[in-house]
């Protein structure tokens, strides 16, 4: 994370935009608008919430522009050059300033704003007229002052009639065949500062291919081994008439900017163009879960700290990731096989015993053996169907190993089943909403309750779904919690929430009785409030536990000691 003063300019911007009114979740807005961690904001904000701000694409562009403007004014370069410099340095202003001040010429070549100097020709052409030494002519060729560069390029190209112009690309109209399409009917030719001419339609096809198939915003000259990059205005000029590619190009630029700023993250929901700004540090991810919502829609909820597209509170990113990994891995399949099957000791086929006696005959190799001791059946002699070798040490060890493996499997399944159960219920929420909708209509018909008065049902469903998400993740966390008093308290809270949620859930889904609608309404409202409280307790207590370092894990967790 960068130092605080680095982004101080931007933060001032954030405050301004707050005042203009942002789209933030109604009841949370008060705490989220408060950006100061150390003022009274901390007391208003819930402990499990983080400060963040949602930015539209236009707002991000404004930030980009302010970065560009500052570079433009510091270096005195053209407006078109600064974005390329910044993009080359991945929007790291400090590094750019340092390197550029150190050696402007090298940086300009590397950033693709100037062609590399051709030693034998250029200094001779410009050096004599403008400067006494070739070194200073090199400086003047690329910057820092735009005017001086223009003179320099004019001098270098003095043999040609046209003056090289950076901002508006050179348009050539003389008879010329484009070396790419060989189409002699083309009349409009363009080139970058490197003076490699190509027809406009080839440029357009090239840029479209780069932008659309490669999602690349770094458009290098089409000539071989030429690293000069097309500035935005050039791209815009070429793409006149192809608005969609231009918009996509623009979006790619913004994405590039956002992806290189540690305090910004693009909303991962499909075709959403919002960005969230959050200044959480990597280290604090061990104690905080930065769940944010973008300003486009309240359903666009995601974690700023990791790539899980679900509200995984109260579990921190590292543990949540571990749990998901475990659930997705088929290591548990192997575990099942281990505890439910044995291998034929002759041909190694995997065998599941699903009934019958201990006298096994391998289907594949016809080997006859005892399921209990795995020894050949012939050695059992007359003690048929009753293995007397059971207590021998080898078979005892095998039995112990098997029961250990079974116990760990059962422990995992305990947590996984509950996790999966809540996940499944959550997935059915669409249906539940539809059902509730119907019920609400029914209520309005059968009782004198108005539309606004039956909204309690929808609110209850909202709350149930929210709490199921919390419950889901609490099981993921519990799996990794070391047993002890802390875990017991944690599970008490979890149980209380679960019971409350199941109660409420049952209540919403129970058939409607017109007689008791009023009492039902009271009950549902009360329980919704109770569930909300319980959920808050779970989230708050877990969050506090993280801050206090109260949780002990039964496995090493990445990012924690």
């Amino acid at each position, binding site marked *: 994370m960068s130092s605080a003063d680095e982004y101080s300019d931007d933060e001032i911007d954030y405050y301004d935009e707050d005042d203009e009114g942002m789209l933030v979740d109604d009841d949370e807005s008060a705490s989220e608008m408060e950006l100061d961690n150390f003022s009274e904001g901390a007391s208003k904000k819930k402990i499990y919430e983080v400060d963040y701000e949602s930015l539209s694409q236009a707002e991000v562009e404004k930030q980009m522009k302010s970065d560009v403007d500052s570079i433009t004014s510091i270096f005195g370069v053209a407006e078109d050059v600064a974005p390329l410099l910044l993009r080359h340095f991945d929007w790291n202003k400090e590094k750019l300033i340092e390197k550029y001040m150190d050696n402007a010429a090298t940086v300009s070549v590397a950033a693709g704003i100037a062609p590399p100097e051709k030693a034998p020709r250029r200094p001779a052409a410009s050096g004599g007229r403008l400067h006494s030494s070739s070194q200073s002519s090199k400086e003047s060729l690329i910057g820092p002052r735009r005017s001086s560069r223009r003179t320099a390029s004019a001098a270098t190209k003095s043999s040609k009639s046209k003056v090289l112009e950076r901002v508006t690309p050179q348009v050539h109209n003389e008879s010329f065949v484009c070396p790419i399409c060989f189409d002699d009917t083309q009349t409009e030719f363009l080139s970058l500062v490197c003076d490699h001419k190509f027809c406009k339609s080839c440029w357009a096809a090239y840029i*479209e291919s780069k932008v659309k198939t490669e999602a690349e915003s770094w458009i290098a000259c089409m*000539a071989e081994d030429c690293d000069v990059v097309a500035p935005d205005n050039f791209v815009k000029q070429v793409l006149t008439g192809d608005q969609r590619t231009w918009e996509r190009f623009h979006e790619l630029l913004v994405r590039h900017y956002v992806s290189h700023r540690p305090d910004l993250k693009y909303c991962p929901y499909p075709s959403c163009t919002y960005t969230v700004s959050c200044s959480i540090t990597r280290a604090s991810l061990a104690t905080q879960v930065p769940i944010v919502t973008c300003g486009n829609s309240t359903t666009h909820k995601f974690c700023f700290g990791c790539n899980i597209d679900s509200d995984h509170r109260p579990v921190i990113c590292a543990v949540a990731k571990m749990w998901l990994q475990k659930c997705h891995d088929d290591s548990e399949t192997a575990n099942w096989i281990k505890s439910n099957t044995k291998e034929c000791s002759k041909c190694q086929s995997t065998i599941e015993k699903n009934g019958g006696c201990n006298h096994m005959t391998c289907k594949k190799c016809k080997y006859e053996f005892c399921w209990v001791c795995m020894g050949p059946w012939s050695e059992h002699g007359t003690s048929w169907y009753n293995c007397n070798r059971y207590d021998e040490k080898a078979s005892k060890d095998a039995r112990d190993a098997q029961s250990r493996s079974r116990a760990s499997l059962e422990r995992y399944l305990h947590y996984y089943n509950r996790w999966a159960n809540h996940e499944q219920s959550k997935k059915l929420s669409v249906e539940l909403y539809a059902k509730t909708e119907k019920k609400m209509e029914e209520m309005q018909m059968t009782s004198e309750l108005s539309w606004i008065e039956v909204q309690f049902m929808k609110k209850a469903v909202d709350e149930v779904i929210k709490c199921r998400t919390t419950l889901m993740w609490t099981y993921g966390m519990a799996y990794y919690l070391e047993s002890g008093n802390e875990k017991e308290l944690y599970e008490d809270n979890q149980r209380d929430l679960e019971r409350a949620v199941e109660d409420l859930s049952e209540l919403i889904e129970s058939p409607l009785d017109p007689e008791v609608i009023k009492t039902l309404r009271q009950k549902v409202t009360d329980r919704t409030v109770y569930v909300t409280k319980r959920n808050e307790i779970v989230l708050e207590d877990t969050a506090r536990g993280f801050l206090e370092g109260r949780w002990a894990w039964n496995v090493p967790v990445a990012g924690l000691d």
Partner: protein
Amino acid sequence: MDARLRRVNKEIADCKNDQSSNIDIDLVDNSPFHLVGSFDGPEGTPYEGGHFQVDIVIPESYPFQPVKMKFITKIYHPNVSSASGAICLDILKDAWSPVLTLKSTLISLQSLLCSPEPRDPQDAEVAKHYMTSKSSFEETARYWTEIYAGGPGKTGKARASAPKDEVAIAGLDPAHVQQFQSLGFEKGKVIDVLRRLNYRGANVANINDDRVVEELLKP
């Protein structure tokens, strides 16, 4: 006319007219977008005397996206997969420029044969061979040129000397050959089968020993 078609037709015509470069481009199934290019192995390399064929597919967005090329002729080279013919060359990927042509790309391939880049390999096993013993690598490359690309082989000057280790020439690991020899198979047969199955380097893991024995047992 479609710009891509015009461009490809011109490129093919240019290649036909140009006799000096010794690069041929032929159509496959009459489509100008699926071609076969061929050139001779450069002189002074283990590939000398061989004639190499390259499969060329012109993508939809050519020339703004690079052509797809791979060797049809098997070749022993650090930057070419000895199994699939896939080529590791920058201009076929990110260093592609629309001004490059089929001819210039094939010439680049030809020069890749002159100057292998074992530090950026396509076939790690071949690259390792190149790095550890260049002379043994060249031996194998020459052998491959002879059997796959119609090279001069034994008649050539290098092979005129004393017989060389056939295992190394086939690009195999002596330990692998030994392993199957110890099962009672003839050395020549083991080498032949392992070479055919491409039982080398990282590929070994994908080939079951049973499969090798099965092959070996075939008359």
